């Protein structure tokens, strides 16, 4: 394969970035920008689909790997990106001045995420991590109702910067212990306390991206404070990228780090329990999703902690199928939101009457998050739990399953609000074609993967094998 061809998905994305930059610079209208951005995102999806089979190292050896693993994650990011820009036509929750710029930041951040999936060198990884984060920091700050937007963004960036500093400090120790920043070299170097020390500290920054305990506190705030589309991107693409990079880094920790596994298991249990419990009492729908994201980080960490090929494949499957599900939720958030305000759970009242399609989308999202078939949530949990039991962690599965039960309580509360409460005092919602399209597309993805998880799992498994586990 021709070397530059390996970079096609990134090129497509880069082209999108440049186009959008041009739009911003030339003062294009909001509608034009949206069209350009949507078409570019579509092109990126196509490029990623085309690029699924690519394999090779485009630049210097050992720095940037294009393989089944990276390409699958790029596809995930691209799909998330496409859906997010598709619903950003109005962006009622953003300041009107930023609505054009937001698309640029989407693409920038997505570029960083795609590179994260391929990075096999720690500096590259760090740069990609930061690149992906900057766009998100800015997006998080664009909420029209700035009071919470400013606070959440400030907390997000300062917390993120501190975490990334810790990460970098960790990377410096890995560098010192392994004498190299290449993942392959680190993986083959002898295990030393300093190396492990470095790995743990590096993980701090990466777990921050996943919103796992104890670096989860930004998530509910940022979900709540970011404009809806930004939060959607934060909740979907960022999660994908986080899993990608965590899998890369953990695969270099090797198999003999039993304590590392213990730590990840503790983090997993703490994340899911804390996230689910706190989500139960939330009133703001987006904040609820933020806490639920913490809980899902916990589920994902099961696969990451087990770190068997099956565990990795399950985590990949889970996070990829999680994308359309969480986007379903944010589509509803965005569509229900009035004048860009954050919808409380009570604002979902009577959705079945106000917009049956949205109600269905919400139902799919909630069932998906709760792991109820025919959404892929069940298959995802099933695979993750299989990996855990395969590794001998029956108790973990029990804890996770009880957690899933708790989570059902608040997901059903949302469903109840949408389907039971009469729509008094709320007017009907007219969906724009873009929203209808996004809804249908996201639901199709959910149902396809739910009814027929085979192909995606196959891709996930190939990705896990490509990871070298």
């Amino acid at each position: 394969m021709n070397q530059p061809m390996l970079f096609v998905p990134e090129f497509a994305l880069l082209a999108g970035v440049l186009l959008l930059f041009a739009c911003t610079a030339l003062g294009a209208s909001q509608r034009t920008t949206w069209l350009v951005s949507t078409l570019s995102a579509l092109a990126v999806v196509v490029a990623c689909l085309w690029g699924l089979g690519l394999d090779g190292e485009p630049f210097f050896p050992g720095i940037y790997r294009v393989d089944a693993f990276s390409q699958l994650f790029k596809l995930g990011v691209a799909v998330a990106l496409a859906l997010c820009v598709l619903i950003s036509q109005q962006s009622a929750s953003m300041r009107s001045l930023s609505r054009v710029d937001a698309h640029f930041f989407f693409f920038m951040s997505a570029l960083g995420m795609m590179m994260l999936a391929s990075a096999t060198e720690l500096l590259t990884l760090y740069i990609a991590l930061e690149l992906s984060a900057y766009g998100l920091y800015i997006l998080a700050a664009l909420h029209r109702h700035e009071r919470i937007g400013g606070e959440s963004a400030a907390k997000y960036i300062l917390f993120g910067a501190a975490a990334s500093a810790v990460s970098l400090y960790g990377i410096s120790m890995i560098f010192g212990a392994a004498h190299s920043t290449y993942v392959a070299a680190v993986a083959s170097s002898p295990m030393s306390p300093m190396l492990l020390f470095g790995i743990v500290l590096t993980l701090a920054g990466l777990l921050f991206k996943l919103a796992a305990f104890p670096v989860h506190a930004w998530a509910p705030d940022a979900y709540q404070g970011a404009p809806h589309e930004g939060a959607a991107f934060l909740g979907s693409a960022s999660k994908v990228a986080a899993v990608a990079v965590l899998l890369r880094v953990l695969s270099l920790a090797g198999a003999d780090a039993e304590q590392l596994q213990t730590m990840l298991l503790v983090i997993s249990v703490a994340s899911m329990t804390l996230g689910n419990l706190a989500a139960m009492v939330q009133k703001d729908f987006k904040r609820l999703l933020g806490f639920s994201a913490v809980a899902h980080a916990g589920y994902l960490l099961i696969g990451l902690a087990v770190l068997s090929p099956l565990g990795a494949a399950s985590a990949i499957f889970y996070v990829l199928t999680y994308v359309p599900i969480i986007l379903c939720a944010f589509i509803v958030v965005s569509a229900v939101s009035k004048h860009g305000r954050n919808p409380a759970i009570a604002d979902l009242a009577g959705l079945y009457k106000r917009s049956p399609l949205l109600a269905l989308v919400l139902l799919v999202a909630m069932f998906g998050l709760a792991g109820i078939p025919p959404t892929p949530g069940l298959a995802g949990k099933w695979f993750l739990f299989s990996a855990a039991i395969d590794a001998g962690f029956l108790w973990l599965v029990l804890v996770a399953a009880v957690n899933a039960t708790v989570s059902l309580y608040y997901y059903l509360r949302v469903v109840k609000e949408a389907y039971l409460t009469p729509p008094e005092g709320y007017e009907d919602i007219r969906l724009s074609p873009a929203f209808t399209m996004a809804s249908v597309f996201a639901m199709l993805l959910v149902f396809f993967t739910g009814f027929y998880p085979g192909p995606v799992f196959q891709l996930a498994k190939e990705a896990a094998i490509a990871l070298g586990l």
Partner: protein
Amino acid sequence: MSDMPILSIILLAPLVAFLITVVLPEAQTQLIKIINAVAGLTTLVLALVVWASYDKDLGGYQMIEDVPWVPDFGIHYTVAVDGISVVLTMLTAIVFLTGVLSMWTLEKRVKEYFAFMGLLVFGVFGVFISLDIFVFFFFYEVAVLPMYPLIAIWGSTRKEYSAMKLTIFLMVGSALLFPGLIALFVESGGHTWNLVALSQAGTFSESTQIFIYPFLYIGFGILAGMWPFHSWSPTGHVAAPTAVSMLHAGVLMKLGAFGILRIAIGVLPLGAAYWAPTFAVLATIGIVYGAFVAMRQTDFKYVIGFSSVSHMGIVLLGLNTLGVDGVNGAVFQMFAHGIMTALFFSAVGFIYDQTHDRDIRHFGGLVGQIPVATSFFILAALCGMGVPGFASFWAELLVFIEAIRVFPVLGMVAIVGLVFTAAYVLRVLGLAIFGPKNSDWDELVEPTPFLSIPRIMLIAVLLFFGFVPSLMVDMISSATHIFSAAGASL
């Protein structure tokens, strides 16, 4: 006929009805009802075809369809029927059709109602015919969750609380099933989810079986209304609308018992043998407990709800005997109880729809006011008491015969429970159906012939298998004769 994927067609019929219902505009209520009735009729006809074409002498799993689903994880879409599945598929089809017909007068949010119901039935069919653990669980969850909106939207009496309670209880059951079911796969070497392959003797060591079995038994048992995890069931019954109660008690609770039989006992016979005495005690407590609590209830549906706890106790006791007659009886009881409870709820629902009252003390002498409608209730009550001539008599007989053999004391206690069953059933009859009439309800009207159809169908089935039980027992025992060998070796 043999190369037609008849099981998949049965499975897909409610799904197709679901999809059409979702697509149709909300105002087309009549069309939606007709489509669902057609789907119900289709499944019933096909279930009859399956019944007729199942070769009882050959036994085992027949009409197998096998398609890789998640090949990288050994998951196959494998469906097949044995004698037990045939019976339960038939039960589901009957309850589906009669459930649709019972809700013919529904006017509130018709489209969504039938959509959820179609989804639920789809899941139930899937459970009864699947042979792959993942597929089984997939359908199991599909069947359980629509109960939430069905009860919460169309129910009555603390409907949201009940719906949530029911769902959470069942999810706790699932929480136990997750580790239990997956452990089967892992412990067997991680190659297959196929139930037949996993059932091979020697797949699991005895200690493994003993460890995993309670996860599965309790996990499924919660859905089967197993004492002491039963309290979701009466609450749910009371809150649910008629057809949902019918499906809930008629079919859904059977999923739990079926899961115990097919997976817990089928795959882990040694574990079952180890735990059987313990769980038989719980089942017996359930029988007597349900009857006693039913004696104090004042709501029609609570009485029926606790009678379900009691009757499902009989099913569970039968399963725990691990003997061929006990299991035959248990499966027969699943069927009979399914039809009977559907009839019960259908009859009560008819009365409730007119009166919006279910307190038995507010009624009296109903039989004089609406003799036809109450006669449905009386017949269901007789069946509930295990009166001969109704299907449940034979079911209970078989269970008790085996129970006395295996657990003499428990068996006797369970039989003594029959007295209390009679007591609470007659209490309801005496208070509400007979006795001095309450002239508040003089204006009650009889069901139209069309509305009587589903009830008459259910009665006909009960009487038919009450008079010709051999048809049923032959079918069931074509699957359980394998069981007897297993039982003997224990």
